[in-house]
């Protein structure tokens, strides 16, 4: 191969042919374009006239140039030019191709793989043993050296990992033996241990780095702060000012994933961080499942949200807050204090609150509930609500749950409760017992100063033991719980204020509320809390930021989740534990990104790989194109493209150039024709016979209308629902054939627009002789398939008083060629009632958008060009009568389309007469 700059030639000696070009120039120049001979009687008047331009007997220079270019392109094309021919590069010994392979490289992954492919090609040429190693996904054991072609087969398996390589890579390479050359595809961002690895690799052989400057973005986990969600995005601090759109994604009430909010983050030039606050209503905020940087394709551009962003809605209801101005004595004061930082509180009456569907309802010392309230509350709990009740003087004094268990109390209560350690009682105030390991409070430290001086007592019961989740030192229950349906009811046997115990004053109170998942402050970050727990991945992210189902993956030890950032041991995703979820993201709250800087001794190359491109095909195509242009140009110069008898060439040109225009003009003409008169239309089904019959049928009904009514339609047209505008037609007849293609999405949109805008489509399955409506004939099934995408309202069999029975003729049957009574139209509104003294109901609005039947009306209506009926209907006189009724139905139908429910206005006649004083 002989190379010239970036181009190499497979057969360079052919280029010698280019020498003939100047000779060709001279030859072509001397031969003028062949003249055209024309017979022309006026030639005598021309005799003696001389040409002004004496040089045009030679080929024009531009035509010459065109031809020379074409010939040159042929020569060069056959010489086999190759762009960027691969030339053998030096290098020997083993080769390690290392990729950072982290999420940061996801954006340019294809380019990286292509480059690796090119390097493997090269290595194959020099027979080097090669290993391709993803540093973020290290192989175990030895460096897996293999033939480059073997690695090329595996390249598709290389995927970017949703984490960065770790320090361990350096150790792994240090443990390997032998020397090798390293080519290192860097993702462009720095990671811990990169310098160590570089040093290790340099010990083994030369290192070349491939890296392209690219701004990498990472989305930090959004955090909740003072009613706003603060989102911050970090990037490698290079690059200009940029605006990055951020999207909050979540499920809508129907369970469909949607973009809930979009906001732009602005980076100043060179700034590493952009931050903005997002204000979302609680309803929306609780729906957010993840945030995404739009247009960034990496795991770092996605941040999954767990419970930490969710704010539970808690309704607080106290029984009789009659004492005024004593906040500290209010039953709800301590609850408010404890919950406000982490939850949204709702106040109001119970019946209003239930409508808002809160997560938790707290009843502080509420003893009596109205019957309706009890019912609503019970239903709500059974649907998954959590009811938290606190005891108090009212509860103690009431008879609630005395003799039998109240559904909204976990246990039966003894009358009166008890007081310990008061002035009038024996004993000391009781302390709390340690929480049993079955309790949700297990593990919470119990402060010494928490004492209980009064409580309501639970009636001993067989079920009591299982329901106690916290007790006093003497064994009496302090907190009891039972499940009710999908929800649960929890009773704290003391008051929510500090009257009966010091519990609300202590931090334990808040922790207990958290454990009950009433408030959700996320302090699951405490490694000790997570120790020993197992979390199951529900959703995981891959390196490209795509969500994948993680249910098939093994559980994760809770301690690993403490950092909340991904590492080779734990991928990003959503992990669910017993009662909460933890999101692990690629970017932590404090992560910063910096550009990987390399020492000057390391050669750094760009990622742009130059692939071999064979130019032969292009050049030969260009030569052909030039020759075709030459033909046109020669015709032009020779006068054959213009002047008389040039119409063929001109029309060919016009067809090539102006065909769309002609189409547009036809469309315009068709639109004008369709709108200047009433035109009935039928859908082109693709079956010629059906289409012809539909056309003939509409022609028949058009003629009938013309003769009998003031509607004077023009000839019907066939419409293609894919390409034609439907809005021009008041009525479309759609015969159904079983092998009809379904309309495209655009056509469906058009049809729905047509139906909503007041058009009518009449579906005719034409099978009423063999099938009843909906009985599953092929046509019926096709109609169902077609109608699935249409916006068709509820339909009903045509009622006796439908306006179609009297728009022009009084009809009760709607036969076509067949006389089935199965005709469906839009259902009447539910409230329609029979008017006094009128034979039909008061149905005054709306034209049915569809008429569905199978009577093959088109065949009954059809006439040929001479006006003769095309198909027999029925037999004898009765058949002719049936045809007449069919035509009358057609008239009624078109009248209905055009006049709406005008005839229904007769229901007003009595009222009008009355008003006129008759």
């Amino acid at each position, binding site marked *: 191969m002989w190379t010239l700059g970036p181009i190499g030639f497979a057969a360079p000696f052919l280029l010698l042919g280019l020498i003939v070009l100047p000779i060709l120039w001279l030859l072509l120049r001397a031969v003028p*374009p062949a*003249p055209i001979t024309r017979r022309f*009687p*006026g030639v005598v008047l021309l005799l003696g006239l001389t040409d002004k331009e004496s040089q*045009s007997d030679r080929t024009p220079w531009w035509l010459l140039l065109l031809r020379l270019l074409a010939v040159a392109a042929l020569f060069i094309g056959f010489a086999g030019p190759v762009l960027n021919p691969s030339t053998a590069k030096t290098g020997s010994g083993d080769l390690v191709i290392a990729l950072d392979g982290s999420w940061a490289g996801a954006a340019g992954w294809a380019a990286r793989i292509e480059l690796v492919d090119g390097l493997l090609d090269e290595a194959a040429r020099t027979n080097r043993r090669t290993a391709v190693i993803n540093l973020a996904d290290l192989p175990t054991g030895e460096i897996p050296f293999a033939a480059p072609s073997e690695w090329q087969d595996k390249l598709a398996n290389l995927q970017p990992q949703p984490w960065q390589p770790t320090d361990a890579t350096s150790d792994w390479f240090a443990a390997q033996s032998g020397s090798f050359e390293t080519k290192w595809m860097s993702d462009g961002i720095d990671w811990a241990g990169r310098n160590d690895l570089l040093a290790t690799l340099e010990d083994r052989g030369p290192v070349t780095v491939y890296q392209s400057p690219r701004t990498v973005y990472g989305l930090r986990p959004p955090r909740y702060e003072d009613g706003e969600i603060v989102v911050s995005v970090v990037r490698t601090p290079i690059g200009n000012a940029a605006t990055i759109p951020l999207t909050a994604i979540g499920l809508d009430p129907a369970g469909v994933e949607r973009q809930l909010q979009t906001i732009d983050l602005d980076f100043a030039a060179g700034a590493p961080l952009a931050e903005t606050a997002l204000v979302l209503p609680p309803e929306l905020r609780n729906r957010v499942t993840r945030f995404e940087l739009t247009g960034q394709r990496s795991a770092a551009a996605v941040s999954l949200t767990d419970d930490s962003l969710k704010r539970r809605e808690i309704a607080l209801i106290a029984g009789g807050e009659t004492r005024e101005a004593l906040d500290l004595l209010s039953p709800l004061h301590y609850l408010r204090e404890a919950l406000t930082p982490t939850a949204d509180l709702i106040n109001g009456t119970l019946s209003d609150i239930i409508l808002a569907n809160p997560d938790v309802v707290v009843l502080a010392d509420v003893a009596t509930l109205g019957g309706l309230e009890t019912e609503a509350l019970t239903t709500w709990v059974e649907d998954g609500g959590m009811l938290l009740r606190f005891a108090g003087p009212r509860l103690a004094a009431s008879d609630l749950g005395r003799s039998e268990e109240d559904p909204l109390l976990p246990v039966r209560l003894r009358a009166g409760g008890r007081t310990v350690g008061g002035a009038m009682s024996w004993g000391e105030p009781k302390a709390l017992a340690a929480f049993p390991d079955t309790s949700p409070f297990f593990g919470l430290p119990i402060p010494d100063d928490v004492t209980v001086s009064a409580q309501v007592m639970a009636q001993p019961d067989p079920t009591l033991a299982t329901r106690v989740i916290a007790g006093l030192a003497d064994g009496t229950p302090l907190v009891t719980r039972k499940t009710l349906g999908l929800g649960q009811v929890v009773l704290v046997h003391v008051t929510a204020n500090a009257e009966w115990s010091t519990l609300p004053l202590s931090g334990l109170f808040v922790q207990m509320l958290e454990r009950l998942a009433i408030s959700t402050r996320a302090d699951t970050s405490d490694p000790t809390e997570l120790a020993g727990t197992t979390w199951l991945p529900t959703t995981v992210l891959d390196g490209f930021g795509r969500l994948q189902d993680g249910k098939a993956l093994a559980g994760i030890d809770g301690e690993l989740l403490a950092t909340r950032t991904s590492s080779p041991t734990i991928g990003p995703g959503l992990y669910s534990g017993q009662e909460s979820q933890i999101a692990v993201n690629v970017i932590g709250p404090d992560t910063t990104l910096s550009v990987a800087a390399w020492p000057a001794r390391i050669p750094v190359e760009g990622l742009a790989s130059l692939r071999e491109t064979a130019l032969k095909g292009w050049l030969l195509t260009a030569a052909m194109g030039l020759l075709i242009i030459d033909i046109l140009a020669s015709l032009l110069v020779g006068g054959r493209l213009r002047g008389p008898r040039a119409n063929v060439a001109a029309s060919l040109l016009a067809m090539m150039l102006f065909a769309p225009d002609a189409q547009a003009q036809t469309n315009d003409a068709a639109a004008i024709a369709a709108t200047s008169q009433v035109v009935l239309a039928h859908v082109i089904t693709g079956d010629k016979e059906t289409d012809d019959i539909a056309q003939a049928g509409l022609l028949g009904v058009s003629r009938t209308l013309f003769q009998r009514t003031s509607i004077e339609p023009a000839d019907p047209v066939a419409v293609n629902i894919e390409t034609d505008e439907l809005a021009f037609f008041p009525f479309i007849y759609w015969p159904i054939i079983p092998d009809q293609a379904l309309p495209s999405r655009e056509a469906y949109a058009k049809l729905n627009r047509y139906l909503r805008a007041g058009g009518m489509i009449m579906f005719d399955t034409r099978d009423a002789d063999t099938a009843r409506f909906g009985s599953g004939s092929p046509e019926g099934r096709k109609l169902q398939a077609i109608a699935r995408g249409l916006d068709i309202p509820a339909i009903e069999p045509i009622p006796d008083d439908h306006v179609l029975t009297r728009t022009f003729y009084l009809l009760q049957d709607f036969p076509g060629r067949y006389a089935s009574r199965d005709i469906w139209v839009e259902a009447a509104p539910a409230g329609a009632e029979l008017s006094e003294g009128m034979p039909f109901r008061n149905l005054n609005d709306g034209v049915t958008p569809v008429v569905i039947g199978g009577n093959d009306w088109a065949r009954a209506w059809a006439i040929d060009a001479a006006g003769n009926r095309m198909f027999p209907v029925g037999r004898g006189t009765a058949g002719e009568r049936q045809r007449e009724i069919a035509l009358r139905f057609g008239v009624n139908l078109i009248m209905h389309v055009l006049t709406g429910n005008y005839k229904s206005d007769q229901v007003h006649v009595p009222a009008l007469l009355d008003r006129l004083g008759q």
Partner: protein
Amino acid sequence: MTSAQNLRADAHRLADPLPALLAQADHLASTVLLGDHGRRRAGMGDTFWQYRSAQAGDDLRRIDWRRSARADSNFVADKEWQIAQSVVLWVDRASSMTFTSDDDTPTKADRASALALATAILLDRGGERVGLTGMRLPPRRGAGQIGQMAAILCETDTTDYGAPDVKGIMPHARAVFISDFLGDISGTKEALLKAADNGVRGALLQVLDAQEESFPFHGRTIFQSMGGGFQHETLQASDLRMRYLDRLAARKDELAQLASGTGWQFHTHHTNTPATSALLWLYQLLSRSA
């Protein structure tokens, strides 16, 4: 030696256009209403025109005694002037007339023949005698004359350009020359002067094709006359256009000058326009000033 079969085929070929031409001419002629046919004035003739009071100078023989007997004064019965006029037509049948630029328009020869024959039919209906120049068809009346004229008009000549033939034109007759007048003008000029010397007056009708008026040619072109006798090569046809049109205008001008100098009329007709206008022009001209 022409076999009988060939002769018959030739005869058919010759006869074929005849009915068409006749029908075409007939049709064309029927478009002109003979509203002012006849001289419409008193003169020599057979049919009664009007009674008028005898005036001094009236020949006594001309007094209609029967009419005069019913009145006090004498009356003269005028006859309508019925002098039959002789009109001689010349139609160029040279090959230059066989040119047409478009399949939809007739050749110049077709149009010229149709116009001539229609004129002849009209004149015949008007009682004039019509003939062709040359000695083959002297002016005569009757349907047979029209048929013969049609037959002769179907013949073609092989010369490139034709010149009017003035043989057989009687003095003071009327003449119509139909041609494209593209050939050498001296022949036309000579014929015209000779005719004018004999007191013959008439019309020059120039029949041209649309292309001859517009010269829509481009590029390197060799122009040939229809017979191939003349040839002109150009490298840039579009370049010649203005000069050609100038020459054509000059030719028309010359013809018009010639006509006005001899008391003739000149008109240019294009084959892509309806023939009726040219026919009307001809007929008006011939019937106006007999």
